[in-house]
């Protein structure tokens, strides 16, 4: 069922006669018609997340970007969360997958941290995946209000409470996630 070809396959296969010339950036195969409609078009400064593409041609015809544009495509976040759970092994691509375990659940899951842009979204995703409820995060007290607490193993091998450090720092150091039962997690915060 694997419908995906690699990027290079796509660009090689669609070179039909003289018509299509979608080349990779740096090649000079751009057809006239597309060039003229591009001239003078500036993309407006938009909510591009961390996209730093400044070259229009490159941003239009470069290999697919995994950058997250806010609110695009127009699929409700509710659907995005559900669908995240459905991604199969073959579609992983260059995601940032980490193992996620939950105390009491028989087997582990894998989750792509790149799908999320904030702790809030990650919590939603975890709650959907494990059908659990994670409490609210408080800086002083950790997680309150439910039986589950999310923790992660960082680069140094230590188990940390999710939420203490800025998001960017978290995703660069998180190696795996574990949703603990809050009675066991007490040791991390106040009893």
């Amino acid at each position, binding site marked *: 069922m694997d*419908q995906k070809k690699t990027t290079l396959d796509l660009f090689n296969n669609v070179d039909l006669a003289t018509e299509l*010339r979608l080349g990779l950036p740096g090649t000079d195969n751009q057809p006239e018609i597309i060039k003229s*409609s591009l001239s003078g*078009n500036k993309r407006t400064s938009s909510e591009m997340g961390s996209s730093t593409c400044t070259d229009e041609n490159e941003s239009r015809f470069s290999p697919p970007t995994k950058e997250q544009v*806010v609110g695009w495509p127009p699929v409700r976040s509710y*659907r995005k969360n559900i669908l995240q759970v459905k991604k199969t092994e073959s579609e992983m691509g260059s995601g940032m997958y980490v193992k996620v375990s939950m105390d009491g659940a028989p087997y582990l899951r894998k989750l792509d941290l790149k799908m999320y842009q904030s702790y809030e979204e990650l919590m939603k995703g975890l709650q959907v995946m494990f059908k659990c409820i994670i409490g609210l995060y408080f800086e002083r007290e950790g997680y309150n209000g439910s039986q589950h607490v999310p923790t992660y193993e960082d680069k140094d091998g230590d188990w940390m409470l999710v939420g203490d450090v800025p998001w960017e720092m978290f995703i660069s150091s998180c190696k795996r996630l574990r949703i603990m039962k809050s009675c066991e997690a007490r040791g991390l915060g106040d009893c």
Partner: protein
Amino acid sequence: MSEDVGTSTCKPKTSVTGEYSVTNPDQVLENVLENVLIFLTSRRDRNAVSLVSKSWHRAEAHTRSDLFIGNCYSVAPIRVTGRFKRIRSVWLKGKPRFADFSLMPADWGAHFTPWAHAMAGAYRALEKICLKRMTVTNDDLGIIARSFLNFKEIVLVCCDGFGARGIGVIASECRNLRVLELNEDEVLDEEFDWISCFPMEGTSNLESLCFDCVESSVNFDALERLVARSPLLKKLRLNRHVSIGQLYRLALRAPQLTDLGTGSFSLPEVIGQQQDENLELDYGHAFAACRSIICLSGFRDLAPEYLPAIYPVCANLTSLNLSYANIDAQQLKAVIRHCHKLRVFWTLDSICDEGLQAVADTCKDLRELRVFPIDASENAEGPVSEVGLLAISLGCRKLESILYFCQQMTNAAVIAMSKNCPDLVVFRLCIIGRYRPDRFTGEPMDEGFGAIVKNCKKLTRLAVSGLLTDRAFSYIGQYGNLVRTLSVAFAADGDTGLKYVLEGCTNLQKLEIRDSPFGDSGLLSGLHHFYNMRFVWLSSCRVTKQGCLEVARRLPKLVVEVFRRDEEEGGERGDFVNTLYMYRSLDGPRADAPQFVKIL
């Protein structure tokens, strides 16, 4: 009725001639009129009637029972309750659609509270409330539950701000409740057993119960008992915490169901919980007993091996929603080949073009199709393409509404659809890859969308995508005179595009545009029309504060809001306004605008 007619009394007067004057003729007319107007239900007709004269205005106001307000900020609650005295149902809409895609800051507004208070005092016979994209609190739900003794129906679509406790209050206090529908709401996790709040004894009047969007698990025993004593229950949509074994039990208790949301349609997550029993159950048998099911949805965690269980009901289905089920073409084919009567079909693109072909082969009566992406990232290839769209256009000639997500498209396929499906009313094509041209010709997608507006003479709603130039918008302006809703994202070229649309689309009501290079001159070309519209949304475009100020100055009854998505004050990002949201209002700028929203 008659006791509310006018305030004047009919006192006989002696005139110079010694004769009595007749009863005020207007009074008689109003009485007659009111008795006729009761039968008038269309709100457009009613609006027309109310403009005839003052007495007609009064008569219409006395007889209107259904209230529809498309933008909650277009009028103040007190004005509404002042004019209409006998309302039985209210339909209120808040935020614009782009709020669904995180483009609106969280605390922007659309609070139901002021409306709840106003209506609690004014409409004691209110029976029905429908809200869309509004923030509703548990307290608001409490007000509803306690203020309207005859309350029967509550429908909340894409709302937020409330939780299980609020639902519980409605369940326990509204003794005449027939309909409780929660549709794509964000329900706060409150770990509260709301299902048990329904009265435990006696027959319930419940006809519809939808809670598929509620993320927390429900007390199944209470649910089962509720279903068992609801003989009128026709519509039941379960959430994903209901396993297939539990569904089985419910289906056996409610064979009269016509609309079923199946919940997870798989085994429960926790190993050991009734696992062994489930393996023995004949799910097909349970479904076969539900002879009346015509609408099926759910499948939140579908275990594909259970899909055959629904075969017995497929032949009768008019609506099937598989958009949470990751199934492939083969799995779909086995189901869809039975569904000859299908009119509405929602799916994931995991079924591929091949799956869409199967739909086209069987579902000759299809009116509405929605294809959602399983992978929302921008890729070069996707599982569905122009091949699927073409197949659908050839097989489903009666198509009226389509929402299609894909990575690539061609003008040829879109043009073909415009010719094969002339009944299209809604055409929404979302090419996920931004600025993607025609996959084979490399040309912009102008001709395709142009053909749609030209050939589909009934088109009222259009969403465009892909690489587009001004030409596309000139087509829309030229041919799209019935278009009421237009959605534009990442469109190329300059101001003229917006001008074409604002000058050409005389029926335009809702315009939502993001990330397109439309600026002040385009914006100002719509001054003649903005009062006729429900709203205009422009975000990440090239509109400046000066331009917005100019609009505000020239159109004093337009509320012009400017803000930034990240809630920074000022509303501007660089030279341009981040988000412009404007709408007409009878009562001026709203009092509840948060700090970061600037009203010009």
